[in-house]
């Protein structure tokens, strides 16, 4: 077998890589913000806010219960028929964000619920409002607990973001597809791209391990790790 790799592919692949990073980073960050809100609503909503609980739950079930690809297509092709036109990038970012928000909401909810109830009680006994107790006591602990599942979600979304080449976004996968089609070097191009993805996964893992260690509470073990 005669494998051919060309340096000339690299600038395009690097552009694709940058776009993959941008899509992943933005959707994960926006998804985290939205996911935390969804989780807080699902854990704490009561009384007059109860309808929000229903909405948040329906949202989470819908987006976790349908394929990302279907969500992307529905957004990209569906919204223009409603008179909302979006660039492929915007539609992709939106789809990725809405999707990961639902998953992240579940991770955040789990983390919030594993903060011991005595923490909230002690905070309220001091005179902190519910929101203050959430902000200063519950969330700082929950955010630490959520790092391991959140790392998995990050890796998953980074790989999952490849589907957006289907609406014409030239991220890593899109660039690879183009180069491969032009040069008839499918195997080689995809090997290089796979290595790019692998390098990204490695990078994310290292960064998040670092964050996890930096935020570790002295004296406490990390749940799930010996």
């Amino acid at each position, binding site marked *: 077998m005669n494998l051919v790799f060309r340096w000339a592919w690299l600038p395009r692949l690097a552009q694709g890589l940058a776009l993959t990073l941008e899509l992943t980073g933005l959707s994960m960050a926006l998804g985290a913000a939205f996911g935390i809100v969804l989780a807080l609503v699902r854990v704490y909503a009561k009384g007059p806010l109860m309808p929000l609980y229903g909405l948040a739950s329906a949202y989470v079930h819908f987006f976790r219960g349908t394929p990302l690809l279907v969500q992307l297509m529905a957004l990209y092709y569906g919204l223009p028929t409603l008179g909302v036109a979006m660039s492929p990038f915007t539609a992709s970012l939106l789809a990725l964000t809405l999707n990961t928000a639902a998953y992240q909401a579940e991770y955040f909810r789990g983390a919030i619920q594993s903060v*011991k109830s*005595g*923490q909230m*009680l*002690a*905070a*309220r*006994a*001091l*005179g*902190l*409002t519910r929101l*203050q107790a959430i902000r*200063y*006591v519950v969330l*700082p*602990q929950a955010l*630490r607990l959520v790092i391991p599942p959140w790392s998995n979600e990050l890796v998953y979304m980074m790989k999952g973001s490849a589907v957006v080449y289907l609406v014409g976004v030239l991220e890593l996968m899109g660039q690879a597809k183009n180069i491969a089609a032009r040069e008839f070097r499918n195997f080689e191009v995809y090997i290089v791209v796979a290595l790019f993805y692998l390098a990204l996964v490695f990078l994310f893992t290292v960064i998040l391990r670092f964050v996890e260690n930096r935020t570790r*509470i*002295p*004296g*406490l073990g990390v749940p799930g790790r010996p």
Partner: protein
Amino acid sequence: MLLRVEDLHKRYGKEEVLRGVSFSLEKGETKVIIGPSGTGKSTLLRCINRLTEPDRGRVFLEDVEITSPRVNINKIRAQIGFVFQDFNLFTHLTALDNVRLGLMRVKGLSKKEATERAMRELARVGLADKAKAYPAELSGGQQQRVSIARALAMDPKLILFDEPTSALDPELIGEVLSVMVELAQSGMTMLVVTHEMGFARSVADEIIFMEKGVIVEQGPPEQLFKSPKHPRTVEFLRRITELYGGEK
């Protein structure tokens, strides 16, 4: 009168946990609540600062009705310390930050003022040198002393203690009790649920014996321990002496 509890009722499902509890506390007084487990002692304390909402009855702190729906309960809670059986220190914060949190976020003190105040309270419970330690790095006795410092820092009118030594290894109980004894002697108003009869005898102005959601008998320790009137009290004291040993 600093605290007045009137006819408190609380029900969980079919079970009536508090069935009309009334008592009061003068400024500077220490009262100790004793009684079998499951009797509603914790529920009573939590109803006092409305960590649990009572179904019926009223609670007054000085002239303010805490149980009124119009009251700002956060303002009230800031004036009532609460010490939990299992400490409930904020696990992600150092001892210093545990004590500072309420000072900064509830009382609005600057970081500098809060630090000074918090360090003074930590020194008062003998833990100034542990200011930078996290709860998981402290012994149970030290954690409970930090939680007392956290309560004290808020300048409470009253501190509620819910079995503050029950989660501690026997050799650590003494350090917490001695902090509490000093507090009582310094004039702090305290309502303490405990099985520590030695503490009750030496510090309490009055003992309240509760059973099944009602106060069965109350009186000065001398009278209640030496000549209890109610057969239920006699029975409880006999059992508690078997469990925890006689008086020293």
